[in-house]
């Protein structure tokens, strides 16, 4: 397979500007600024079929096309590097090896959107990626790739790095804009959508690190080439998958979209860890409903995974072996969400601790048959929350109810967790 995002990686530390250039870096930017209109570049991204890698999978070129270009005042581009969804660590691995794809991708996106001031919002604790980015931004400025009159094209843009102080909700795009503005990072209501009224009221695009890092290769090699990278015709491009849990190789790898779950587990993951048998997995980060071994044939792409009842999400695959209690796993996930709830709306603030309590009762042998129905009701009510955090939190609960109801019942009948000795 052909690598795009990890193509340039070397084992010892981040790629330098000289190395990136020697490997063809910034040729896409030269190509775009040298003879393509912003509309032409945008059309390439639309035609490539690139979909957002931050979790929601929204078509990137289409998102850009929503931005009105005729309103007075500045427009903004924000790169989302909050990456706090449990099981997800791909943006860190990418930026530790190579910050340049992101920098070039952001300049290209900025050119398309007519943005003069862009931001990278990075989570706390990502010290190495932040250091790499700080250095890359400074070097790009010195090399005339950022700042005034980039590559003598007349286009000017700067990128600021904002290091967060830690809170999962800051990754939600409207909460992120509040965080950047120095306000309490509760989400904003949509509409108005960020493309119309976002950061400081200006039209704003929020894109994930991996999404933006794909842009240079699309501009360089064309949309058909990008599409052709995927394993199935419905998909487009490669994707970073990060594996954790009970497989042998818990690593982050770049794979063609559309490879099946089974191929991934048996191939790059090296199978299960010694002595372990596959029971279930989270296919795309903490908020996605579980898959079981019956899903090994599902192609790992946005539509195929959605059709099978889950979401490709961030590509964070967490694998559980047969000794794992799925009630316990769900409880762990719900505790995360209950703690990270921003408290703005009632269904989430009050509902998540309630769900947590029900799951704790199962684990402690105090659950009753009626509690299963209570869980089901909460899946329904929490979908009414103000932002996607609470419905996302119900992802694992949905999976638990669908595939592991017997396991819940086992807890009720035995009056204890059957996995605890």
């Amino acid at each position: 397979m052909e690598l795009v995002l990890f193509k340039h990686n070397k084992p010892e530390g981040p790629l330098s500007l000289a190395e990136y250039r020697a490997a063809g870096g910034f040729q896409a930017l030269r190509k775009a600024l040298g003879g393509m209109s912003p509309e032409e570049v945008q059309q390439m991204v639309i035609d490539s079929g690139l979909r957002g890698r931050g979790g929601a999978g929204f078509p990137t070129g289409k998102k850009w096309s929503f931005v009105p270009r005729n309103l007075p005042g500045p427009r903004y581009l924000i790169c989302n590097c909050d990456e706090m969804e449990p099981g997800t660590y791909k943006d860190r691995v990418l930026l530790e090896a190579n910050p340049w794809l992101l920098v070039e991708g952001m300049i290209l996106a900025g050119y398309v959107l007519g943005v003069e001031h862009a931001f990278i919002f990075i989570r706390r604790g990502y010290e190495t990626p932040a250091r790499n980015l700080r250095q890359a931004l400074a070097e790009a400025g010195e090399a005339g790739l950022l700042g005034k009159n980039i590559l003598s094209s007349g286009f000017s843009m700067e990128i600021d790095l904002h290091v967060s102080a830690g809170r999962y909700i800051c990754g939600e795009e409207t909460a992120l804009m509040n965080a950047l503005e120095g306000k309490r990072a509760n989400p904003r209501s949509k509409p108005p959508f960020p493309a119309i009224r976002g950061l400081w009221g200006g039209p704003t695009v929020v894109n994930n690190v991996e999404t933006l890092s794909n842009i240079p290769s699309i501009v360089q090699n064309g949309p058909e080439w990008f599409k052709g990278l995927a394993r199935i015709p419905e998909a487009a491009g490669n994707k970073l998958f990060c594996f954790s849990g009970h497989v042998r190789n818990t690593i982050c790898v770049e794979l063609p979209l559309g490879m099946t779950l089974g191929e991934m587990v048996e191939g790059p993951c090296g199978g299960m860890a010694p002595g372990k048998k596959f029971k279930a997995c989270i296919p795309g980060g903490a908020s996605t409903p579980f898959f079981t071994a019956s899903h090994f044939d599902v192609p790992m792409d946005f539509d195929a995974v959605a059709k099978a009842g889950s979401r490709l999400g961030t590509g964070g695959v967490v694998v559980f072996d047969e000794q794992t209690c799925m009630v316990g796993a769900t409880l762990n996930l719900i505790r995360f969400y209950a703690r990270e709830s921003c408290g703005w709306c009632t269904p989430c603030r009050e509902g998540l601790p309630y769900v947590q309590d029900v799951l704790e009762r199962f684990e402690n042998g105090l659950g009753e048959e009626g509690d299963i129905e209570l869980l089901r009701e909460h899946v329904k009510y929490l979908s009414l929350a103000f932002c996607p955090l609470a419905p996302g939190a119900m992802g694992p609960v949905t999976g638990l109810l669908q595939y592991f109801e017997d396991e819940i019942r086992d807890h009720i009948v035995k009056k204890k967790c059957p996995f605890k000795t």
Partner: protein
Amino acid sequence: MIPESMKKELLEKVASAVTSREAAVDVMKELQRHYGWLTDEAVDEAAEILGLSPLQVDELATFYEMIYRRPVGKRVIQVCDSISCWSVGCDGIMEHLKRRLGVEAGGTTEDGMFTLVPCACLGNCGEGPTMMIGDTLYGRLTAERVDEILEMENKRYE
């Protein structure tokens, strides 16, 4: 009170931001670095520097995981308790740390050296169990490795 030079630097930072509030998180972090935690005095100073009320600063301070409105030890030990680390035994690591340090989660050791807290995913999910001490990330933890790390961290301050 913070030194005049630091105040001047922070005021410059605020002046160069798009709006003064934009610099709020950076200002809180700098003040916390100075005092060790965000004291009431620090909240007042941040408010003055940012042109906000102390309540507006507190509204931000209490939102973030990394801003401490209570005293903490010289080193804060954050143990990831999210799903990937859970699947490889982070609960055992937390119990071990509690026993070793003689504190409950949220507590600070008697010598004021360590504060122990659970935290959300640190983005090191492939190499769990994971903890962070200061700016340093430690993965693939075992009880033995934790003991070694504590010893090393203690030495740094001797």
